[in-house]
């Protein structure tokens, strides 16, 4: 008995027999690798007929627009996120605590819903321009509003919903800096401005960069906004090449190029995160160093902090609520909501289960190759939905083709066994959002130190007892967070859902997209509002967990 129990359970469970945790991790890594390999594989297939046409005419435009959009969004999110984080971190004023989490709310909006909403209220016949014409506003004031459906307009929409990434990272970096560093700079004769310029900003730079790069990944993955605003980027180009030209090879090759851009961002993001670790100093936090402000200066700070919330959340939400209240047909909404929630709920449960198994595989059987697999699994979040959809559609469609051919002699009619099924959708969601679930699950599990397991065993718990008595209660919060975040991300996901859904299977996001496509922007308000309201849950949750730390 003594010998058996003295074996650490990590080595008892595995190595010698195939094991569910490890197998799942390998399978998950294969799932993520499949679309990447398929898409990259087409680089070696050679050029399609349309490809040369594409290279001559459209490729440069797609690349240029994607790059320009990225630059503008980068500038936008930094211009909004860094000053907001700075005001919240370095000043104390009435309402600061409320504003510090209000500033996160735009995260609940998918950029395309913001685009639809602003287009709805700002179009030529809309209330704003009608009023401006009635008071004879000068043309130069109305022109930018008329030109909202443009590349700068798309950049503005994306910046308004993506700045919270930068805000969050910058705020954490500012708060992480030891107050002593600033005081050290003062004792070395530096003025307040010099301290900000030479110490505070340089030290927060890696965190700001990481936040910006996350925003840029979302920008490159965006389809709804650029498609609606008629901006031709890689994502719209891929969809157009696949459906419009029917050119699988061309679409896959374009996807590979987009992947190249994404890969650069991923590498840069990893590097800046690496540096963030060196820069955080956890002794005495900055909080004590922030400055009390009252009166007019407090009012100024409050207004400046409120601006991004106003345009990124309050105004569009007020519009959506108004339109929903006055014009919504709620009957059709039930089926959509049911579809969306069932799809998002089912998928996120599957994804979180897989994430749990990957996390436990890493805990029970830590090894070098397993950690490589886990990194690969984590790359999914960087893959644009369009690329995943292409990478899933191509092999699934060929499988369907092959299976139909095999079954033809039985008289079975050609069927889309995989490519037009919910399975394809769940598969794509797994690839894209497993990393999101992993983040929460891994951090939850890492808080349960191995010494807790060991003392549990020494105090007489069995292996399952440890799981039941220690892990389940401690992991509950992390698992819930993971489910919630996945659920909302799936609810918002547009391009992959659009390309992979079964025929006539509509979700809230799809309906919103279709209604907007028919310029029925007011009718799109109800499903949009539902997406945003559900999207608020993880934002509030996120803020709670951030402020608890």
């Amino acid at each position, binding site marked *: 008995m003594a010998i058996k129990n003295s074996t650490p359970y990590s080595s008892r469970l595995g190595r010698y027999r195939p094991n569910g945790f490890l197998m799942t991790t390998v399978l998950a890594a294969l799932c993520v690798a499949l679309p990447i390999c398929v898409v990259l594989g087409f680089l070696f297939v050679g050029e399609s007929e349309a490809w040369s046409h594409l290279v001559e005419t459209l490729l440069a435009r797609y690349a240029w627009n994607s790059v320009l959009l990225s630059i503008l969004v980068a500038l936008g999110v930094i211009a909004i996120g860094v000053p907001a984080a700075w005001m919240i971190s370095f000043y104390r004023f009435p309402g600061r605590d409320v504003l510090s989490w209000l500033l996160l709310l735009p995260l609940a909006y998918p950029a395309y819903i913001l685009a639809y909403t602003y287009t709805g209220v700002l179009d030529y016949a809309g209330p704003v321009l009608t009023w401006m014409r009635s008071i004879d506003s000068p043309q130069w004031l109305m022109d930018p509003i008329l030109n909202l459906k443009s590349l700068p307009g798309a950049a503005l929409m994306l910046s308004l919903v993506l700045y919270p990434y930068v805000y969050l990272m910058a705020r954490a970096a500012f708060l992480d800096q030891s107050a002593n560093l600033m*005081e*050290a700079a003062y*004792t070395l*004769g530096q003025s307040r401005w010099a301290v900000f310029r030479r110490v505070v900003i340089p030290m927060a730079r890696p965190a700001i960069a990481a936040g910006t790069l996350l925003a840029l990944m979302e920008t490159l993955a965006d389809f709804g906004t650029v498609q609606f605003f008629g901006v031709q980027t890689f994502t719209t180009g891929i969809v157009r090449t696949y459906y419009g030209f029917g050119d699988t090879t061309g679409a896959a090759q374009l996807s590979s190029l987009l992947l190249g851009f994404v890969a650069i961002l991923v590498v840069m993001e990893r590097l800046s995160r690496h540096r963030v670790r060196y820069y955080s*100093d956890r002794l005495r936090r900055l909080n004590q160093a922030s400055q009390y402000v009252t009166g007019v200066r407090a009012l100024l700070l409050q207004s400046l902090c409120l601006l991004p919330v106003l345009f990124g959340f309050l105004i569009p939400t007020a519009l959506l609520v108004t339109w929903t209240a006055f014009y919504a047909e709620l009957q059709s909404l039930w089926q959509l909501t049911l579809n969306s929630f069932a799809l998002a709920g089912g998928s996120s449960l599957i994804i979180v289960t897989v994430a749990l198994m990957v996390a436990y595989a890493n805990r029970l059987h830590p090894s070098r190759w397993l950690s490589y697999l886990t990194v690969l699994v984590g790359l999914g979040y960087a893959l644009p939905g369009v690329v995943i959809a292409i990478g899933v559609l191509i092999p699934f469609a060929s499988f369907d083709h092959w299976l139909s051919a095999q079954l033809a002699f039985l008289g079975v009619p050609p069927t889309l066994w995989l490519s037009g099924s919910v399975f394809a959708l769940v598969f794509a969601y797994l690839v894209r959002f497993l990393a999101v679930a992993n983040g929460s699950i891994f951090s939850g599990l890492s808080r349960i130190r191995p010494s807790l397991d060991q003392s549990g065993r020494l105090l007489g718990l069995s292996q399952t007892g440890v799981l039941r008595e220690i892990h389940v209660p401690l992991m509950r919060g992390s698992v819930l967070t993971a489910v919630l975040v996945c659920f909302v991300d799936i609810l918002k996901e547009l391009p992959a859902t659009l390309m992979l859904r079964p025929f006539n299977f509509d979700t809230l996001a799809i309906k919103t997209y279709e209604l907007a496509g028919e310029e029925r922007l007011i009718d799109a308000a109800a499903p949009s509002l539902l997406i945003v309201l559900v999207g608020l849950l993880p934002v509030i949750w996120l803020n709670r967990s951030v402020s608890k730390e």
Partner: protein
Amino acid sequence: MDTESLVIRDVSLTYEQVPVIQNLSLALKPQELGCLLGPSGCGKSTLLRAIAGFQPLNSGEIWLDDHLLASPSHATPPESRGVGMVFQDIALFPHLSVAENIAFGLGDWPLETRQARVDELLHLIGLSGMESRYPHELSGGQQQRIALARAMAPKPKLLLLDEPFSGLDTELRGRLASEVRTILKSDGICSLLVTHDQREAFDFADRIAVIHEGHICQFDTPYQLYHEPHSPFVAHFVGPGEMVDAVVEGPRSVSSPLGVLSNDQDLAFAPGTPVNLFLRPDDLIHDDDSTYQATLVGKHFRGAHHLYEVRLDNGVVLGCFAPSHHNHAIGERIGVKLDVEHLVVFPAR
């Protein structure tokens, strides 16, 4: 009268609304290395932050080289005080190299003199050749010496050191405290160290102010603090020792359980007064020929000597140094005798 560099006059401070320093006065001479020694929470760090300019004064004044730094109505901003500071958490800028850290406060110096100053300091702290390293590549002791060089670089009129060695391991701590003393003495900077570690204070300072509950109990050289403490608190705080009951015999002598003792200074008590006599382990020595016997109840082998704990016949347990080769067993009766140069007596409790 000597000129004074740092003058603290009747200063009172509060920390988070709690008064921590009350009417404290202290003065340091130019080039003097001072130390604030006290248990944690005695307000010494708060006082240091007030000198640096991060803490407002409730009353009193702080002067440096005849300039008023702070009073309840005036506060020179920290960056204009000419005060350097070395922090407990070292606080090196992680995004700057060693040379950039040291040169941080030399922004307005001409490039060549700046370079020369950095080289000079790196040489002084014995880290020449490390200028392009980054803080995270260095050991704790190296980081602390660089933090010192960075604070010294702009030639401040006063250098403050806030428990700078507390993050380091014990052995390194003592060595670094003496090293820093040598460096600061060679540069002639007036300095003030804050610590709760008596050995660190002895290694570092010319004079030590023992602070307890917001007051200075005694401001003296390490030797005087150890051998002529003014209060039981100081006596106990700066080193081990025990009280034994005694009675004053004459103007310069007391009668103790270990015989009559005298010194060459008048006592502050009239003959016949019962007093407490404070004895350190080095006051009591082991001597096989002594007429006084005590029971050995504890022993700590220190290599070069033994630190014995012996129980006198009246039940009092005292520390006693014995030569390394006098290896007695616990429970043995051994001979002890007193070898006291200064009588440290306090009113009997």
